[in-house]
């Protein structure tokens, strides 16, 4: 019975959302956007990050994590593929920015689409031989891919080895508006840049979700065999999910590298893949608002509790367990997902039969 109570409250929220007229929803979007634009204010920062620089962490980790989580959500939340090596695409974007920026002298705006394409190609290269695998097999292969990229960067002199690459150019300034002057000191322009990209990505992803592609992903997630039998070219759509997710990761990497100037392979550890995955799942995989919330919390909480330094990871680990116990479907689950859960068969297969409990 308890189980029913939880989706109910959430359900009433989403019902009132559905009742909102078109202009009402639009107004909410505009309000959210205005809120996001005003977010770097110092007064907010004093509350949100008293022991760190709020404007900086709004770009990284918060902005970048949110972007990565939205990208990974396509792979995990929409297509139901477990990817434990998502950081690889982030790294590819970062290194593309670093190498093309320092050695070829390309501009940020040229590198961004190039890197997105490169990451997408990498997604296809990883996906093509491996996407026929399922579950744990796919997980370990993706994990391996992430490690391969990092180790290769660490051991290849042309990628700077463990020293990485320094002197990465910033994006060129736009006009004389202070929000668009990309330098070392002011993090705000980078935050607005990542915000703009995020808005574009979200619009595109939501459109995609409600298109034929999105329905195909849903079918794959729910029952791959059945989808295949119904004539959904599952392999093609899985590859699409991988490529689109990868390209968003790549874009995140470009942003990150152009802000921090110097990157090393240690910027792209396995644990980052895990954190982003945790963000997606704890937020509510498949629901973009949930994913954003999850990524925000994963990025923000450790910064908020700097004073707590030694216990941060401990508490984070404990909180993940508690959260998964009480809200296995995430903080803001997607509606379809919630229904899959109550049926006891999540997209990745449930943990076992629902058996009558000894209560």
């Amino acid at each position: 019975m308890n189980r029913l109570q939880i989706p109910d409250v959430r359900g009433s929220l989403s019902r009132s959302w559905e009742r909102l007229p078109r202009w009402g929803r639009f107004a909410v979007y505009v309000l959210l956007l205005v809120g996001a634009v005003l977010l770097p204010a110092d007064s907010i920062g004093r509350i949100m990050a008293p022991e760190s620089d709020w404007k900086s962490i709004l770009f990284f980790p918060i902005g970048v994590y949110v972007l990565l989580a939205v990208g990974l959500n396509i792979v995990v939340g929409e297509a139901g593929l477990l990817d434990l090596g998502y950081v690889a695409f982030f790294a590819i974007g970062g290194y593309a920015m670093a190498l093309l920026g320092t050695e070829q002298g390309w501009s940020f705006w040229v590198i961004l689409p190039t890197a997105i394409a490169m990451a997408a190609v990498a997604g296809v290269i990883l996906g093509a031989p491996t996407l026929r695998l399922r579950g744990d097999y796919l997980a370990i292969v993706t994990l391996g891919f992430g490690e391969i990229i990092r180790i290769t960067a660490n051991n290849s002199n042309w990628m700077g080895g463990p020293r990485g690459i320094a002197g990465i150019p910033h994006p060129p300034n736009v006009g004389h508006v202070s929000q668009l002057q990309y330098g070392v000191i002011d993090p705000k322009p980078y935050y607005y840049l990542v915000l703009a990209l995020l808005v574009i990505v979200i619009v595109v992803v939501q459109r995609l979700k409600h298109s034929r592609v999105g329905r195909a992903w849903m079918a794959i997630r729910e029952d791959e065999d059945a989808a295949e039998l119904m004539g959904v070219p599952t392999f093609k759509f899985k590859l699409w999910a991988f490529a689109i997710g990868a390209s968003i990761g790549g874009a995140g990497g470009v942003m990150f590298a152009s802000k921090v100037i110097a990157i090393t392979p240690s910027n792209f550890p396995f644990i980052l893949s895990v954190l982003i995955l945790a963000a997606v799942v704890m937020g509510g995989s498949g629901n973009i608002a949930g994913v954003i919330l999850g990524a925000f919390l994963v990025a923000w909480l450790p910064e908020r509790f700097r004073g707590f330094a030694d216990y941060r990871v401990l508490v984070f680990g404990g909180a993940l367990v508690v959260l998964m116990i009480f809200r296995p479907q995430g903080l803001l689950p997607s509606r379809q997902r919630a229904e899959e859960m109550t049926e006891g068969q999540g997209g990745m297969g449930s943990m076992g039969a629902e058996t009558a409990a000894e209560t």
Partner: protein
Amino acid sequence: MLLELDDVRVHYGKVEALKGVSLTVEEGEIVSLIGANGAGKSTTLKTISGLRKVSSGHVRFAGEDIGHMPGHRRVERGICQAPEGRGIFPGMSVVENLEMGAYARRGSVRGDTEDDFDRVFQLFPALADRKSQTGGTLSGGEQQMLAIGRALMARPRLLLLDEPSMGLAPKLVSQIFEIITEINGQGTTILVVEQNAAQALARAHRAYVLETGRIVKSAPARSLLEDDDVRAAYLGGRIGT
């Protein structure tokens, strides 16, 4: 009364799958439960076996309320099910699958189960030839035999059969039902769920008709065979043997 369901309700999430099912099975009977796809037949069996939680109502077995008892303890009480789709363990050999049937009888050692093996191999000689073959490599008919044989290994007082004829050739179907009658003759009470209503009604003593989570008819099986509604809905107007 061996088994009694009293106004049992079961939910899947928000959907009510059983809307107050009441039925009884007497010692020594074959009772069959017929109905269309999605009527709640399998859910009823799963509820009796403890795979589904009862939202309200009672399940009584041999006078004891077992509605909230975990599934594995119900097996110890003597309820054993051959599930829909047979549920053969594909990685285990025929013998190992049969041994799984005797799992609930804790003290069971080889000597003790010897008789049970003999009984199963007598009923299903085909299995005796395939003792060491893994379950996944058997044919559909053999798997069904194995599923029933495995359930018998538990020496059940009540045997639950979920669609024993599903996916089998007509000749095999009659064979299976003959064996079911034989098992019943040896003293095991049977509750069988079937879409092949003709066979089920022909072999059963009594029958219930389930429609969208409710019992809509209950009568001696023979009389249902003559029932016009039932014939129209489940027998396609044609009476089997």
